[in-house]
């Protein structure tokens, strides 16, 4: 099992933002977390990645306990993430952005840079190649010399994925990767996400666009008020009455 979450919880004051979550993420799969606004999806991500400290439960990655590890250690260990609101270095070009993702895999120090050691040269070339490859994989290589603030939203989103890819993760946490992307382009974007496991990168994502999720995910976890409502394959989730009531809301009118 790649990621094992057991009884994970986070209390803010008297409020349970996330409560008693169990989730297994299989290697080579796309796992999705869905739920209405405020269901605790982003909190769950922040707990996994180490931005928040859980108040209960544990997270294990590749059998190693990472419950208390900080984000940069998580990245080092092989978990990358993207943010809901796209986070890029706006004043830098896309290539520089993705190169920043290589920092965590760089071993050369200031002294290597100063004395221009073979290790430094080898690593610079490798970083450049890997960054370019990540940009190409995400289909935005032709924008690599443009400033991040000057490219369309969709390109930014793809660059965020490329930057996460550059850290050579085994698991990628994508927080609403298709948010803000026009409907007609979500299919393309879904294909990109779908192709990540073939690179050995498993995916855990939060997404609002149901149509996209249903075609994309192998397993879906449905959250409601910070708790697990259901878990299963897309087909199971679609026919689950609890889910339909809470999330899809189709029976709401009838109930009232």
């Amino acid at each position, binding site marked *: 099992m790649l990621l094992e979450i057991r009884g994970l919880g986070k209390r803010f004051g008297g409020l349970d933002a996330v409560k008693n979550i169990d989730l297994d993420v299989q290697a080579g799969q796309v796992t999705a977390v869905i739920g209405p606004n405020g269901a605790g999806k982003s909190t769950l991500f922040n707990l996994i990645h180490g931005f928040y400290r859980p108040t209960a439960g544990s997270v294990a990655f590749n059998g190693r306990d990472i419950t208390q590890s900080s984000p940069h250690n998580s990245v080092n260990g092989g978990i990358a993430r993207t943010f809901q609101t796209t986070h890029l*270095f706006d004043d830098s070009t896309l290539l520089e952005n993705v190169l920043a993702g290589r920092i965590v895999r*760089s071993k050369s120090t200031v002294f290597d*840079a100063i004395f221009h050691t073979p290790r430094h040269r080898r690593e610079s070339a490798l970083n450049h190649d890997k960054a370019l490859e990540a940009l190409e994989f995400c289909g935005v290589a032709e924008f690599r010399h443009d400033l991040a603030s000057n490219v369309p939203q969709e390109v930014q989103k793809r660059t965020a994925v490329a930057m*996460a890819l550059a850290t050579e993760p085994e698991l990628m946490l994508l927080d609403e990767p298709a948010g803000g992307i026009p409907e007609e382009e979500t299919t393309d974007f879904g294909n990109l996400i779908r192709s990540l496991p073939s690179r050995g990168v498993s995916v855990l994502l939060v997404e609002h666009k149901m149509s996209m999720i249903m075609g994309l995910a192998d397993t879906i976890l449905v959250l409601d008020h910070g708790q697990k409502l259901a878990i299963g394959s897309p087909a199971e989730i679609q026919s689950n009455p609890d889910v339909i009531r809470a999330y899809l809301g189709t029976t709401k009118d009838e109930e009232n």
Partner: protein
Amino acid sequence: MNGLKNPRILGTLAVLLVVALTPIAFGDEAYIMRVITVGLCSTIAVYGMNIILGFTGQLSLAQGGFFGIGAYAVGLLTTDFDWSFWQAFLVGVVGTSAIGYLSGLIALRTKDEYFAIFTMAIGFIIYLTISRWEAVTHAHSGVNNVKFPAAGDLVDFSNPTAMFYLVFAILLICVYITYAIRRSSVGRTLLTIRTSEDLADAIGVNVGLSKQLAFAASAFFGGIGGGLYASVVGFIGPDAATVDKTFEFLMFILVGGMGTVAGPLVGTMIVTFLFEFFQDFQAYRFIVLGPIIIALVIFAPRGIVGYLGGFVDKRARQRRIGSVGANASSRPHDSTGPEASARTGTSADNVTTTEEKN
């Protein structure tokens, strides 16, 4: 050498060349040579500020204090303890870096404006220690007859021109270190922290440790600058460590351009000369300098070098767009992921560029 085609590197080399040639013009005038050499000592300290402020984005106001520690280490060790300059210099620089590292351990628990105030307090503590601890630092009587560096019979460093070239050589090393950092993943690490600490953390940067090392590095440069300053001037008093000194450095880097390789040198030299030029006006010189700095912050917030760099970037981008089509077919389309083919034909596809391998 590919670098020689880069206008930034060319510009930096040109500035260094001009500075290197100043002794030919002013070699006979000891006073001017000393002003320039003192300016170079400040420049080295400003390079330290460039690392913590320019690259890492943390406004450290302790730099004047570190400068003072370096100066007093060399001053006191070469006079009261009769060490040679080089021994004192080495101990001074290592000591300043250590003090920088230790104070950073506490200072970097704070952020933004709190960090600025905290480091200013560190600067004050250093200044007060130097100006009040009479038994060790001689307080306001200062330190006299600081030794010149010794080099056997090879060079006589009491000659202003020889001293100039020594400081200049060390400055060259500092400029090169800045350049090497700027281009390496270390520099990239610091720049990511400047842009967004959260994002830096999210892509695996150890933000705390990196800031800590950047702060120690800034103290290291401060110590070098201060140590050389003591020897160049020969007499130091507590004003070598004042907070005013910090703000002077801050002004130098603002004028020159934060986060650039040439900025600290350009800014320090220009402002130092303006200071000298208006020296007759004493305190009133800020009436003239103030508006100049305000104008600069408004019209060129990235400093002189940053302003010029903007032109270079613009031209480079235009040239790239100009080369459309010439090599558009050279890019392989098949290896760009499963969805790339769906995206060809968008307007941005025209901005294919020549590869920039370095």
